[in-house]
């Protein structure tokens, strides 16, 4: 890899000052599991690498107003094993547990994954289905962005060169809601998903009709894909195979996968439909079980 200056600030303020001064020439490094590969392959060649290793205060999970706030430096392994996450938003623990291998999960962070913005990743898909919001900070101020608006293209987000993603806010699931993350990988378990689906279904407990749902997919477009047209189909309806088939068809129309070693575009599109149908059914069953 090309040589770079390395900085390891002790405080957030110092990080932001460095980003302000070096912006476009700098990259943030947290766990480094994605970034080091890109550096090795010279896909990126920053003049400065700003490590978040010494920062405290960004690596905890906190309860905040009916939501959980995940610090950007919380690791995948933390998310997988945290009693708070497993108890309050178990689908998140299930999602982080399915990423890569233990070694990667010990280093890769919640925030780093989002900033990396590979559309085949697992956690962005589930987080989006949970209506997560991200906190972005620069020396000029802070803002919050809904995750549906955060990703713009392959490896691109709305993050400005001087901004740092500091936390993710995830609302606690509403009552009578079932959620699932389904990772379809025809190759090995440590791979990225060929197709990933996060589905969340909220039902009206007495009628068992769907109140609201979320359908988000990974690996089928240039960003994680939320298909609101399919979500609208389920609203006010009862769980039925024909309904799931219709939702699957609508989802397929919105996918735009690329052909790669994980599958041809046609295969991914086909599997997107199959997986959405399965995920919705499982999420619905979870909602029914939770309500009984």
């Amino acid at each position: 890899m090309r040589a770079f200056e390395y900085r390891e600030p002790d405080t957030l303020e110092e990080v932001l000052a460095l980003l302000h001064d070096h912006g476009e020439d700098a990259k943030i490094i947290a766990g480094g599991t994605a970034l080091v590969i890109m550096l090795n392959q010279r896909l990126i060649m920053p003049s400065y690498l700003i490590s978040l290793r010494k920062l405290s205060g960004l690596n905890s999970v906190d309860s905040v107003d009916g939501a959980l706030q995940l610090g950007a430096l919380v690791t995948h392994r933390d998310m997988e094993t945290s009693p708070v996450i497993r108890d309050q938003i178990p689908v998140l623990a299930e999602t982080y547990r399915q990423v890569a291998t233990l070694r990667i999960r010990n280093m890769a962070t919640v925030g780093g994954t989002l900033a990396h913005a590979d559309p085949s990743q697992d956690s962005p898909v589930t987080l989006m289905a949970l209506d997560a919001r991200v906190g972005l900070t620069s020396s000029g101020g802070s803002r919050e962005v809904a995750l549906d608006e955060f990703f713009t293209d392959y490896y691109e987000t709305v993050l400005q060169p001087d901004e740092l993603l500091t936390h993710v806010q995830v609302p606690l699931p509403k009552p009578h809601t079932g959620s699932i993350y389904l990772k379809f990988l025809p190759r090995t378990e440590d791979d990225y998903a060929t197709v990933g689906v996060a589905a969340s279904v909220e039902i009206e407990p007495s009628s068992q009709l769907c109140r609201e749902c979320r359908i988000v997919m990974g690996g089928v477009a240039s960003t994680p894909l939320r298909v609101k047209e399919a979500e609208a189909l389920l609203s006010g309806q009862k769980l039925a195979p024909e309904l799931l088939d219709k939702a699957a068809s609508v989802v397929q129309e919105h996918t735009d996968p690329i052909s790669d070693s994980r599958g041809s575009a046609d295969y991914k599109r086909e599997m997107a439909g199959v997986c959405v149908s399965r995920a919705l059914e499982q999420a619905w069953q979870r909602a029914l079980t939770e309500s009984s």
Partner: protein
Amino acid sequence: MTDYTIRLNVNGKEHTVEVPSRRLLIDCLRYDLGLTGTKEGCSVGVCGACTVLMDGKPISSCLALALFADGKEIVTVEGLAREDRLDRVQQAFIDYGGFQCGICTPGMVVTAKALLDENPDPSVDEIKEWMMGNLCRCTGYYKVIESIQGAAAEEAGGG
């Protein structure tokens, strides 16, 4: 570009090393410190041959900058044996035939040691889940699992 001074504890011994920013931990261990037990298999963190423990946790040393190890405790395969005998996991891999060519073995043994440190009596499913990221082209994994079970039983037996 300047070099950076890092201080790392490797296998119980303190080392001070001058490294350029881009030095990977695996290269620091193998070339700067002469600890060639850790192997580079894929360079992208998938195969597990480069596994070392950093503060007790298995990581891919091919994906870590040497700078990340500053102030940390690193354990490599060389750090497992005591002066007079092998670690239980190492001995079990010999006794149960857990390796053939041996290239994956340092990573396997280090990862297995971390498992037994955290969970001294793992089920087969727990072994498989923990070890899932360590690839082997020779053994078909059966003997690896038996070796880990053997090491766990040995530990439990207090032998």
